[in-house]
């Protein structure tokens, strides 16, 4: 698909068109540098600054923020709990999402188009609305409990809401479409002929899947896992809306540090940890499949 533009008008690129190309892309480049990359650099710098007892921030190098992060079991506990959340949510999304993604490749083009459109639909609906939609479903007098009570399966409402369970459910629902989209894009990149060749050479369907399709489609699964893990790690709204007492996660800690405690250098240190995981994930993905395969499009 990407070869379509080969031999197009711009192939014999002249000096003036190169200038035009740069002129068109420069504003966007400046925006990303100024409003995304430079701010991330600011986070890095701030994490080595000193916060005075008065609350003011002083420009003097210190490692205290990092010492506080790694030295205090409270922060480590929340970080570990958040990593567990992100890992479990990623695993669940991958396992639950693989089947539907594979199914989309099997059905007729019309049905495939519908299924793909429905995958993108949630990303149009507000995150906060999608999170709060679990409140009337999982609540004490919610849909599940009222159904279960009526059927007599339970006599007391189950504690489904305002705990870790509802946070996990909300996050899986939020991130599953992204996982399925990425797995599906990976599966699409697999050349049918290679699978057919394996079948001709005597592989049964399961063998063909595990030794040909699955490894070839791995970049999609990996991209999905990276995306879901990082977004789950940085999830702020879900624990706020669906969590209860004692369900503080990492992003909530970051927010509290900035907004309630006004401790900017330490907040920056906390945020830098998320960036560290993002960069590590990207580096791992680059090793596996090359970064240029990260944002492939869906073929129709």
């Amino acid at each position, binding site marked *: 698909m990407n070869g379509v*533009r080969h031999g197009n008008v711009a192939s014999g690129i002249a000096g003036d068109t190169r200038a035009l190309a*740069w002129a068109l892309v420069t504003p966007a480049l400046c925006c990303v540098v100024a409003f995304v990359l430079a*701010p991330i650099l600011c986070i890095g710098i701030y994490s080595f600054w000193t916060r005075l007892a008065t609350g003011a921030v002083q420009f003097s190098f210190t490692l205290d923020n990092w010492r506080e992060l790694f030295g205090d079991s409270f922060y480590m506990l929340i970080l570990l709990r958040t990593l567990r959340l992100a890992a479990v949510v990623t695993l669940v999304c991958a396992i639950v999402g693989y089947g539907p993604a594979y199914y989309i490749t099997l059905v007729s083009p019309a049905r495939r188009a519908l299924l793909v459109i429905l995958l993108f639909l949630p990303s149009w609906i507000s995150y906060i609305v999608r999170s709060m939609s679990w409140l009337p479903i999982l609540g004490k007098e919610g849909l599940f409990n009222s159904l279960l009570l009526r059927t007599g399966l339970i006599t007391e409402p189950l504690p489904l809401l305002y705990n870790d369970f509802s946070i996990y459910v909300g996050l899986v629902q939020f991130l599953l479409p992204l996982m399925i989209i990425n797995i599906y894009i990976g599966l699409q990149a697999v050349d049918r002929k290679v699978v057919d060749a394996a079948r001709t050479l005597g592989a049964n369907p399961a063998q063909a899947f595990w030794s040909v399709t699955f490894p070839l489609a791995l970049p999609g699964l990996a991209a999905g896992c990276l995306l879901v893990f990082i977004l789950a790690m*940085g999830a702020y*709204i879900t624990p706020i809306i669906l969590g209860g007492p004692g369900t503080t996660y990492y992003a909530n800690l970051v927010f509290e540090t900035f907004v309630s405690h006004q401790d900017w250098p330490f907040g920056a240190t906390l945020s830098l940890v998320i960036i560290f995981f993002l960069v590590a994930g990207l580096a791992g993905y680059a090793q596996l499949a090359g970064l240029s395969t990260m944002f492939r499009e869906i073929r129709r």
Partner: protein
Amino acid sequence: MSARRALRSLLGALTLITYLFMLAPALVVVVLAFNTSPSSTFPMTGLTFRWFAELAQDDAVLGALWNSLVLALCASTLSTVVGTAAALSLSCFRFAGRGPMQLMLTVPILVPHIVLGVGLLLAFRVFGLAKSFPLLVIGHMAMTLPYVVLTTSHRLRAIPANIEEAARTLGANRIQTFCAITLPLALPAVLASSLFAFMSSFDEVTATLFWLPANMQTVPTQIMAMLQFSVDQKINALAALLIVGSVVLAAAALALGRALSVDEQRPRGKRT
């Protein structure tokens, strides 16, 4: 063979359940918004429009709605202009450094909003800028820009090069070709991605909480504030309106995407 068929039916059933899990909760909210009972609980007691009427009288909600509309309109307009220019450059020209540039313009999609929020807030501080509405617009523009670049450049690549070549062969210069061929073909895709940018700006909450000037609310932050007190029916009515609005906009974007009909005539690779 029948085992394969059974497996496929099983996968189909699994897919159906998964899709229900992803989409049905939103439907529950929409249905519940019409319930007569003032607390959002089951079973339903009757149907009413009362909560929508109450919503229309709520000055805080209306003010937040106005703020969100202006914010999303400004941010999506800016990111569409800047992002479309970049997408044109990335998909219509081949030049050294194009690959890394494409990557740099799309990677911010992966950065969690809490990090974007923190980063820009700190950057404002470094330059001594107070939180303000224009800074909020800038933040939302930067956040939606990668989506515009990504989707628009994908769609632009779908325009067959030979159509542009034909125009050039027939004597059109580069600018004429762009205005007569490329732009009309790209316009639906540009509009569709600007709709998405609008919606994601309208819905953004995590980073917005960091950037919001004092005494100002957008619709999502207003919902956050309302949720702190109780989950009442007014919130459900608001959520229902947002869901319906989002689905309508998504459908409009889809229709626009379909309008790029030349895509369908493009020679394809193998079909399965």
